[in-house]
């Protein structure tokens, strides 16, 4: 028992300063306000979607201009989009983090350049990613592929799920990199040193000692990236999202329906906003449920993993 600690214990038990009380109240009120707004958002959306949410809603196509029917193609499109995005972003992100943490000598110009590139990539507005998707992927890469492989017919040079996925992969790359680096940092350097001392090469150490331990952290990063990618609409506005498609995307050049885009179009352009409200709320609820479940599982994995490593 150091004198300071017993002093503070006694102080907080006997004397309540008005400044203390008001600050405590102010901060508590702030937390309450934030959580209340979140609760209101969830309750309002859940309440508004009663009546529209059903198994048919989740498994059938929209009809009557989105006023009836379901959102299955939108769910499918969102999942497919996010899947391709992850396949593109995960290897690159993990490799970048491995390079930054395992291979690069600290404070070389290359390492600093990559780090600042990652930070800037994280700060780019989502609509600018959309512009990039149009200007680079569609107009430049797409049209080049067309002129080389299809003699100029417009095949890849227009909005398509492959371009939307790649655009989103760029957007979520920093998330994967940061999460993976955190995971790598958490592994004690002794594990690496031990492995190297036993004769393993650097890559063997990474592949068989470091990476398996970092898996939960990498998984967390992937899940957070998926959650972010599923919710972003601005980058896919012109790179492939569509409102009414009578088929499911099956080819990289297909367009796709998307939960977030569906909410946007229904809310602003549907033929009868009031009649569309239940479906609108229900679609928003499904999208929220998707991102929330993803985030919660990431948090749970992160918590359990931190406990494991510490223990």
């Amino acid at each position, binding site marked *: 028992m150091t004198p300071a600690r017993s002093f503070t214990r006694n102080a907080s038990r006997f004397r309540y300063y008005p400044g203390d009380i008001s600050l405590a109240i102010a901060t508590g009120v702030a*937390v309450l*306000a934030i959580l209340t707004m979140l609760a209101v958002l969830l309750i309002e959306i859940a309440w508004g979607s009663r009546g529209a949410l059903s198994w048919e809603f989740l498994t059938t196509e929209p009809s009557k201009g989105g006023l009836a029917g379901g959102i299955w193609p939108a769910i499918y499109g969102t999942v497919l989009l996010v899947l391709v995005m992850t396949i593109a972003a995960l290897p690159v992100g993990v490799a*970048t983090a491995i390079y930054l943490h395992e291979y690069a000598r600290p404070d070389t110009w290359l390492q600093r350049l990559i780090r600042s590139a990652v930070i800037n990539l994280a*700060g780019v507005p989502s609509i600018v990613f*959309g512009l990039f998707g149009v200007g680079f992927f569609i107009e430049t890469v797409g049209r080049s592929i067309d002129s080389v492989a299809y003699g100029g017919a417009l095949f890849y040079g227009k909005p398509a799920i492959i371009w939307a996925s790649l655009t989103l992969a760029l957007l979520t790359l920093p998330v994967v990199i940061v999460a993976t680096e955190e995971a790598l940092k958490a592994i004690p350097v002794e594990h690496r040193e031990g492995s190297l001392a036993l004769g393993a090469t650097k890559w063997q150490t990474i592949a068989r000692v470091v990476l398996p331990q970092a898996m939960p952290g990498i998984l967390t990063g992937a899940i957070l990236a998926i959650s972010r990618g599923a919710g972003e609409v601005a980058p896919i506005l012109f790179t492939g999202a569509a409102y009414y498609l009578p088929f499911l995307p099956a080819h990289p050049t297909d367009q796709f329906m998307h939960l*977030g885009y569906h909410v*946007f179009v229904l809310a602003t352009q549907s033929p009868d906003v009031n009649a569309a409200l239940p479906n609108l709320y229900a679609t928003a609820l499904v999208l929220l449920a998707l991102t929330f479940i993803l985030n919660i599982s990431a*948090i749970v994995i992160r918590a359990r993993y931190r406990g494991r490593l510490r223990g």
Partner: protein
Amino acid sequence: MIQSAETVTPSRRRSARRSRIIEWLIEKTILATATVAIISILLIFVFIGRQALPVLSSESVRQTANLREFFTPNGTTPQGEPGYIWQPVSEKPKYSFIPLMIGTLKATIVAMLVAVPLALLAALYTTEYAPRRLREYIKPLIELLAATPSVVLGFFALVVMASWMQQAFGFEMRLNAIVAGCALGLAIIPVIYTVAEDTLTSVPRTLREASLALGATRAQTLLRVILPAALPGVFAGIVLGFGRAIGETMIVLMAAGNAAIVSWSLSDSIRTMSATIAAELAEVVYGSPHYHTLFAIGALLFIITFVINSIGAWIIGRLNARMRGTVQ
């Protein structure tokens, strides 16, 4: 490798060399992949710049879309005074950036006014006043707010918040900077909160205990000792939130009214730079002055966020340096 050349047989030497080559290959592949980040940011620079460049370089484009058009008065208001007009589809297209920039600024200001106090106070509560078990619940819940897609927040603002606010405050325009700004604030609260909370928890306990031991109240300790010590991190969070607010698209596209008004009133509708791009890019013909102007707006947006992040990083560096002198 702990081997000496004399005791190693030729086959082992060969396989050692082979595995060294593989090692080298793997390292270089990883290095190459790691440069994707740099290449991407450069490509973004280049491609948006290339599509925006004609407003500076091409004679035909500059006839209607040029710097003077963007930043100086380019038309007359209905009241007959010279003004800044954004009306790209017209007999004489008008491309003034000023109403768009003012709109972006207004939304961002409202968002920061809403988010910064709430996020900071909430971070203080979570780190200082909350009992341990409550903390385990509050932090993930606020991070759940971060998981809310901005399109859902925009939808919520459009359908629910706008009506509430109009009933409560009697706004003339139902969709305006305040409605969009509040929803935007909600979106960036978790950004500021997470960083602030992280920083506050990493302030050494010794600082807190010393302050209390010297007779300061809890409030004084928090406000005069711990918060200043956490300032670099907290400021980083605020800068992050600011950058996010400036670039956010869906919320302002749905809930801000999209009217390119030049006024400082927060209860007027606004048209932000990001929403303009989102609303108009689909209709432009590839290569037209309108197309290049939209890319110019995108380039401007990109440059602004880049500059803000850089200035923020520099200020944080200075704050950190100052801190390092006083704290272990």
